[in-house]
């Protein structure tokens, strides 16, 4: 068993009792010992909190939706709280009815962050061998959609302008679009290329800033 397997087990079934194989690995791995200790400390603090009302169902819905959106979990959306997936049930059972919704939310965000940081790329391989969409690709897809819509609006506004500044904006926007396409092609071929991902992120950031500058200029000139 390896670190990622331990994380998977914890994600699926909660902290205790860990399967024998996982315990054996944790006993020899300082990395996983720290991971388990961190989670145990959070659970312990949560259990010491006074009893509160059950978090409303919408909290579970929004949490699960957010975790799904970030690609951290991949179960089908639940129809009601009572129909939570076993994986989700495992986590919620850690706290029982005593946990505060806020503490639960905090724990899950921390745990999700830890898991995601420790295995940023494994999440794209489904247990059945299929390829899921990477969390970062989901983020970029949303960003790309918004920026592309803005780009169309800007192009429509500036269609008739031939000023040197507008030409410069258009040429540089084209350069950014070309570079984004290059990085995306690279990431499709090599999804684990961290440098390509980093440059793609920069490119989207620059595109957003450029579109903002173009809109500002439209506002100030016309």
């Amino acid at each position, binding site marked *: 068993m390896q670190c990622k397997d331990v994380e998977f087990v914890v994600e699926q079934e909660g902290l205790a009792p860990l399967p024998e194989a996982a315990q054996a690995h944790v006993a020899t791995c300082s990395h996983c010992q720290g991971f388990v200790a961190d989670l145990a400390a959070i659970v312990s603090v949560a259990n010491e909190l006074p009893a509160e009302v059950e978090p409303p169902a919408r909290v579970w819905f929004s949490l699960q939706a957010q975790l799904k959106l970030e690609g951290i979990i991949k179960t089908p959306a639940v129809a009601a709280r009572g129909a939570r997936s076993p994986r989700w049930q495992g986590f919620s059972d850690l706290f029982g009815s005593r946990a505060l919704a806020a503490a639960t939310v905090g724990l899950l965000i921390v745990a999700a962050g830890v898991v995601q940081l420790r295995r940023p790329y494994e999440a794209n391989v489904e247990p059945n061998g299929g390829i899921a969409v990477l969390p970062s690709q989901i983020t970029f897809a949303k960003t790309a959609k918004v920026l592309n819509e803005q780009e169309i609006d800007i192009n429509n506004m500036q269609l008739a302008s031939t000023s040197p500044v507008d030409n410069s904006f258009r040429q540089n926007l084209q350069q950014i679009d070309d*570079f984004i396409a*290059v990085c995306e092609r690279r990431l499709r071929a090599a999804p684990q290329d961290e440098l390509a991902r980093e440059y793609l992120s920069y490119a989207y950031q620059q595109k957003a800033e450029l579109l903002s500058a173009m809109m500002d200029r439209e506002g100030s000139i016309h």
Partner: protein
Amino acid sequence: MGTGKMNMTASWPLWSLPALRRDVKPGVLSLFGAAVFLCSGLTAAGAASQHIEKHFAVHTRPVVVIHNVANGRIEVKSWKNAEVDVVASQASDKIGFDIEQAGDRIDVTANVLDTAAQPSELEASLQLTVPEETELQLKTETGLIYVEQVMGDMTLESVAGEVHLKEVSGYIIVRTTEGSLVCTQCAGKLDFKSISGGAQVLQPALTNVSLFTTSGNILFDGDFVRTGLYTMKSGKGLVEVRFSGNDSFDLKAQTAVGTVDNRAAAYLKPDSHGVKHLASKFTKGFFGTVGQGLAKVELSSYSGTIRILKRD
């Protein structure tokens, strides 16, 4: 608060003439030619061109804000006086200047009054003389931004104009769309971002440098300050670093699909700090240490070339 006056002649502080002569002596002939050309242009432009000069008394460390939406250059130099001198030149009356003082803040804005004006009618240049310790926020579209011998934090933004800095210090932020940066003998911290503009950092005394461009080239030619942090990244361009034999820095250079041109292999040793660097299988690059590895240098290019060499 300021005393404004209008005149039709070029105005430049007398104190600066010796320094100007010293700086431009090698190119005096070309300067003279340019002056003749400009004068003929001014004559042709007719009576619409004009100069505005204003003086503002300030206390210590004023803040000067310039927003030039017209085409033209912004020059900022310093003097010992506790006064900000603003000279604005415009090619036509289709541009208006708003110049105001609020305490130690001086705001200068060039506005386009006629959106149907031709580009040649929208030329407006600004020459400022400020106290040595002054904070600057300058924004222009196509003209050169030139700042010399000013100490203070500054944010300089340009779309297509170049940014030239000489002997400035402070926290320097430069943003351009396609304008390039030339930073000579700068000190403090430098943060440059551009889409297609390049950056040249020459003989710096900068302790923190962050340069990023999508398609421009980057050149760093100078010493790395011990404990300094230097990050230089270009998406498609060349990233070149020329260091000296006395430098001391840890180096990390990587590219996704570009090339690494390491001409300093003789000076680079394996990392001496016991940190195990693992290169990604998707990138090419190298890690190494020059001297004791006191500064930290990170270079990357997605598809361009990274070149590192020792200066002669």
